[in-house]
């Protein structure tokens, strides 16, 4: 077999799309064709709905889809993390049962990692997994779970052994969310949205074949999920928008995107809306205030130099250079930018920044910025954790002496969580 080239991949996918693409297909019907052909996930293994192509060809495939206007497989949400984790660690049973319906978008997934008592310290999870016969019985509580109320399946990290150090006693399960032992309640945020849920387990059941890791290896599997979550965080920042074309499949795709993206509709405000600053400054005349001009300039310097730093990191990656420090800074810098943007929006709006909703500037958008920005420095790894990652991994500084990793987890002091 000859090595695939950009040209051969392009020709092949183009020919396949021209022969098969039909905008009058139903969304799931079309995606099943994609799964059968392997063009929905070309970098996946041949055996599991892919074509074994190097990941670098995905851009070519995406370009050809865009050229003809073809809809792709379901990519948004936790389902992509589930797929990556199952491909890396799952059994053939898992792959058989879940991968196709992940790609077609028929199944929705959620991630059951964070708990009220363990946010940054995720390996300190205390949700219990106890064996009863050959089944697992789950009791405890998870939090910050996106889409839990819609999810069919959950990626669950739970403690199966309390007599070993904390990283060693975890197991990783796939949990059926549609069972009586699982209760989902929305979690209302300080900005009025409820994008996440609290999930309560009362004797929820996991059948034995739904264990992904061996008991004790749950943390390793969770690390795979988290690694893909960090990578995907950038993709999420580029806002998913449906095509404006007419046709049954496009309608179905738009509906899917609207549902998936609904919890994230305040995310642009969370990042500070740097894009609105100049327009607002002009509208209000504050563009002529020398003090505010200085603050705007500080913001623009931050956001421009952050953008150029991200592009340096990407260029180095594309050239195959070893990763420099510039690739690890984006998350922390985005917090600085969001905070400075909130300051600037406050100065620009003046007294109007007191008002929200239809009484507030831009129909409430400015108020939503001011009360959403605090999430940026917490969600997806707090600034404090980011600084530890940078100092320990990039700058090779020593860890703080640890008090919790060398003794049985049952002896480690932990939060008392009201139930």
């Amino acid at each position, binding site marked *: 077999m000859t090595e695939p080239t950009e040209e051969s991949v392009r020709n092949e996918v183009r020919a396949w799309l021209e022969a098969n693409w039909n905008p009058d297909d139903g969304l799931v019907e079309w995606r099943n064709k994609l799964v059968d052909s392997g063009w929905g996930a070309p970098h996946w293994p041949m055996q599991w709905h892919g074509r074994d192509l190097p990941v670098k060809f995905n851009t070519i495939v995406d370009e050809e889809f865009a050229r003809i206007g073809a809809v792709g497989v379901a990519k948004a949400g936790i389902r992509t993390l589930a797929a990556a984790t199952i491909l890396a660690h799952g059994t053939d049973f898992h792959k058989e049962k879940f991968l196709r319906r992940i790609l077609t978008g028929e199944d929705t997934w959620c991630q059951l990692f964070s708990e009220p008592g363990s946010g940054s310290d995720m390996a300190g999870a205390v949700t219990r997994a106890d064996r009863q016969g050959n089944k697992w019985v789950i009791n405890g509580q998870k939090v910050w779970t996106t889409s839990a109320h819609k999810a069919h399946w959950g990626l669950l990290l739970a403690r199966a052994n309390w007599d070993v150090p904390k990283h060693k006693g975890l197991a990783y399960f796939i949990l059926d969310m549609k069972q009586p032992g699982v209760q989902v309640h929305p979690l209302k945020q300080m900005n009025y949205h409820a994008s996440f849920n609290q999930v309560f387990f009362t004797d929820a059941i996991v059948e034995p074949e739904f264990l992904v890791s061996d008991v004790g290896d749950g943390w390793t599997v969770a690390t795979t999920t988290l690694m893909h979550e960090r990578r995907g965080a950038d993709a999420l920042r580029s806002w998913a928008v449906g095509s404006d074309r007419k046709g049954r499949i496009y309608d179905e795709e738009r509906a899917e995107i609207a549902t998936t993206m609904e919890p994230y509709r305040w995310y642009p405000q969370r990042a500070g809306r740097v894009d609105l600053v*100049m327009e607002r400054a*002009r509208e209000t005349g504050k*563009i002529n205030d*020398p003090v505010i*001009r*200085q603050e*705007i*300039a*500080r913001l*623009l*310097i*931050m956001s*421009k*130099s*952050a953008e*150029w*730093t991200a*592009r*340096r990191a*990407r*260029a*180095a990656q594309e*050239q195959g*250079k070893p990763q420099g*420090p*510039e690739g690890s*800074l984006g998350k*922390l*810098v985005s917090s*600085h930018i969001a905070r400075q943007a909130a300051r600037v929006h406050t100065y620009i709006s003046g007294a109007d920044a007191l008002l929200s909703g239809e009484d507030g500037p831009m129909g409430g958008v400015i108020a939503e910025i001011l009360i959403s920005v605090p999430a940026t420095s917490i969600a997806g790894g707090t600034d*404090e954790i*980011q*600084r*530890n990652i*940078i*100092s*320990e991994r*990039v*700058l*090779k*500084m*020593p*860890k*703080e*002496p640890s008090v919790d990793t060398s003794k049985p987890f049952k002896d480690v002091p932990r939060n008392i969580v009201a139930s």
Partner: protein
Amino acid sequence: MRFSFTPEQDEFRATLRRALEARSPTKEVRRLMATDAGFDREGWKKFNQELGLTGIHIPETYGGQGFGYSELGIVLEEMGRGLLCAPFFSTAVLATTAILNAGTEEQKKALLPPIAAGERTATLAFSEADGGNEAGTVTTTAIPSGSAYRLDGTKSFVLDGHTADLIVVLARQPGSKGDNGLSFFTIAGDAPGVDRHLLKTMDETRKLARVTFRSAEARLLGEAGTAAAPFARTMQQVLVCLANEMVGGAERLREDALEYVKMRMQFGRSIASFQTTKNKAADMLVDVELAKSAAYYAAAALDEGDDDLPAIASLAKACAAEAYLQTAIHAVQMHGGIGFTWDNDTHLWFKRAKSSEILFGDANEHREKMMQHWTH
């Protein structure tokens, strides 16, 4: 190439860094900064000629190597890192860019080859007693006298003005105002009517002079009365060059402070294991990397041409100014008591950070300039 360096550029940087480490250890910096000249004329000439540094961005037609601002930026970054005491910025950046921007073909052919060959040092005299960076505030006058001009007035904050072989002077026609009537002139540093006074500077590695002209005979550079535009262009290039020099110094300070805290033990453990120290080190990395991105982007923008250049140059300078100074403040703090002593090297870069912050306009001034470009 605004976001990465080529393998050739990386190799050039590595060679230069090794050469500068040998040439400019801090012992040598301390020796030279204590002299009036501020550099060792023969030693610098030899070093410069071996590496062809002052000709790096001078076109080959004028005896240079014909590289661009990205390569010049690398030289400056490495010099800022090594705190090299030499009249490089004054000669290769200030005077050379002014000559390239304003000079006639004939003048460039006459003035640039000796600079490229390392045989002549030079500087640009534009600021006066108020230390301003705007052409409009120039009061030094030039009156035609035969085929030459007579200069009268006092320039201040002239980088290496007390030693430069050639001084490029920004002066105006008597009675002219603002950007009108401005011209560049060239005059030998030791010409009759030129009085040079070395100023005592906070940053001893960067020598500044007050230069007084009393009916001093000078040659016109370029076309009479049209210097405002080439001067503005020169200042943009100068800012980008300084930003690149600054990020080199900032990175060196950051690395030294990091090395020190990893070594220093208190309370029975490395102080680098305290989160308060680690947080500071992470913040320093963010500041320096962002400033580097801006400096590199700006240098490439000069090479490629960019309508936003006035804003980008000011952005790079403002960004580097805050990053360098903040890094210096943290670096002293991370060294603790020893960081405040004369014998510890941190203060050498601290002072360079301070002088760089102010030179050619501070961060407030450049944030405002950036906004003017982006809001008009």
